[in-house]
């Protein structure tokens, strides 16, 4: 009779444990990986593929090479959208960020009974749904019964009551931008406040000893130390502008003419109204690539700062 003897082999046991762990980890990762592939990477690849197709979303797609891109760049609507998002990004950086810095500094440096509720008030616009922000914007700029129009009528200021804030090609973009500035400045304020409050107290004490107080402290001490956060905010502003859709769409639907159209609005119209899935995908690709370029800029900035 042959008796089998089990010999304890530490190397084999270690290998088995390692293999089991690998299987376990793979099984745990699998659902999230599947989710990412299905809902993120596949749509990105599919968007790139569709951008080279003539597609209505129904029936057969036809390969047309770069024709969608060519048609976009000769389309007045797309060009207007591109110019608008870049203009929007530029002015967001030039107006919203200095404003945010100014408010963030005021709220952290001059702490009193008013400053605490003011923090909540400034941020409140940021947490409101875009639909409500747009409604409030319309409430202010509406041509016949808006606050500004009524104000003009009340004081007999015809120049104000005659202004068509949302219906004039000249004013519509800036009216929407004004609402956006009110709504979107909340986040940079909170972000900069957090960064200012994180700074060592010694900075402030040393500056005070040298007689650098108030706005001089803001300009000479704080600002140089906030260059990197401001750069990140600038990149976020730019990417946010490239994807801009909700506020201008709900306030003006991109009009009058193409006065407030953005790449997002153009994409929506091409895909859902005009049934031009290929062209809509091409806009999606352009937004993606532009966002990628700005993200790379962000990372290169990080390296530099490091």
């Amino acid at each position, binding site marked *: 009779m042959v008796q089998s003897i089990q010999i304890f082999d530490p190397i084999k046991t270690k290998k088995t444990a390692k293999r*089991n762990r690998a*299987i*376990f980890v793979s*099984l*745990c990762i699998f*659902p999230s990986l599947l989710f990412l592939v299905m809902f993120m990477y596949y749509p990105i690849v599919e968007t790139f593929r569709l951008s080279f197709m003539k597609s*209505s*979303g*129904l*029936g057969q797609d036809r390969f047309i090479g770069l024709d969608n891109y060519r*048609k976009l760049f000769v389309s*007045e*609507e797309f060009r207007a959208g591109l110019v608008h998002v870049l203009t929007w990004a530029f002015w967001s950086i030039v107006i919203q960020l200095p404003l945010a810095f100014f408010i963030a500094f005021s709220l952290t440096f001059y702490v009193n009974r008013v400053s605490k509720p003011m923090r909540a008030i400034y941020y409140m616009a940021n947490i409101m749904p875009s639909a409500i922000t747009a409604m409030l914007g319309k409430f202010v700029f*509406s*041509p*016949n019964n808006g606050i500004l129009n009524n104000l003009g009528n009340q004081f007999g200021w015809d120049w104000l009551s*005659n202004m*068509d*804030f*949302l*219906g*004039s*090609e000249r004013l519509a973009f800036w009216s929407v931008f004004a609402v956006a500035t009110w709504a979107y400045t909340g986040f940079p304020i909170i972000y900069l406040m957090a960064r200012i409050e994180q700074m060592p107290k010694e900075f402030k004490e040393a500056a005070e000893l040298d007689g650098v107080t108030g706005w001089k402290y803001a300009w000479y001490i704080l600002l140089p130390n906030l260059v990197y956060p401001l750069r990140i905010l600038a990149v976020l502003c730019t990417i946010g502008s490239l994807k801009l859709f909700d506020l201008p769409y709900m306030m*003006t*639907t991109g*009009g*009058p*003419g*193409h006065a407030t159209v953005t790449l997002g609005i153009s994409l929506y*119209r091409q895909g*859902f*109204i*005009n*049934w*031009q*899935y290929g062209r809509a995908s091409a806009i999606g690709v352009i937004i993606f690539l532009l966002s990628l370029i700005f993200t790379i800029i962000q990372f290169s900035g990080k390296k530099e700062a490091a």
Partner: protein
Amino acid sequence: MKKFTLVCLALVLVPLMAFAQGQSDTAAKESGPVTLTIWGRDIPDTAADHIYVHDLIEGFQKANPDIKLEYIPLGDPGLADKTKITMAAGVDQLPEIVQSWGGSVMGGYADAGRLLDLTSELASIPGSKAASDAMSWKGKTYGVAPFFAVAGIFLNEDIFARNGLKAPTTIVEMEAVCDTLLAKGIQPFACGAKDKWPALAMYMYLVNRYGGNAFDRAQARTLSFADDAFVNAAKTYQMWVKKGYFGTKPLGEAYGDAQQQMAIGKAAMMVTGSWMCSQFSNKEFTDQKIGFYAFPVVTGGVGKVTDVMGMTDIGFFATKNAEAKKDAVVRFFKYAMSVEACASEPGRICAVPGVPAKAELTGMASKVFAASQSVQFWWDQDLPPAVTSPLNDTIQSFFLPNSDVASSLKAFEELVIDEMGPVKK
């Protein structure tokens, strides 16, 4: 080792069991009474403009207890967007019935094989030809339209009476009326050009009155959209905008604002669809007396007063997903087109014979419809979707004082060439 195997098995089996549970739920659902899912636009409440859908659902359920209706209101543009996305995904996720205006959008779905051909089943249902045509595509019928709308002039009778004015029958008379109204500080027209599509109704009529069937020819590609009829109509339109016929801020005002201007008597006229009859007849909405008239003719022009622009007001089509439930769908469509179901509608023009107009205003609109010799389907429901939004953009550009309408139409024609081909010589 055993423990490890169990954990791995659980990781794999739990999602599988959840999936199987979902499948068995679906199977259980299907074994009950026939369920028809309907994607609709309006909330089925008892508000004046929703009452028909409300009574249709309730009435059909009472009369057909063996069929369960699941009505899902998706609003606007929710219904259009969701339908489009789901159609693109295939047939399986589609409901059995979708509310629709028919026309080219429905035609696109029909071409892609997503709709159920009910030509023979619906042939016996009595109704207006224009409404039936609207729910047909390339000779096949896919649904029904119990209500049909025509465009015309809603006119404030009180303002006209106070100023000794009569409903205009020619464009020259209409311009004289507008000048008189402007001189008295009354805005001649409400439009809602901010929303783009409301500006189309007047332009369709102007093109027809100048060029007769110019649109039909342009659609058939025997005429350019930059032809004289289109350009002259656009020039007239822009001239009226510049004269202030649409107020000082026409592009800042949406369709809802235009309705309000009519409701409070700020504007004297509005060229739009007869779907507004119920609202303009509602004393809670307006205390003004409003009438409905055919659009005037151009003296020496080609179009006639009996050429009318129209579109489906309420319609439904069946999807290919309803193939197994064809009988239930046909029963629903027949009920939707019954006098009983249509009787509750307070304001729309009914396409079903034997349903009297409840409101005086609807009666006026019905007369315009009844007198029509040709009904041109609303352009943005008739042209391929690829060019309808640019069409509305083009028409909105007529409201910009410095825009060159001829260039705008030429740019639109180039887009049409791209999508529908060049003009055939």
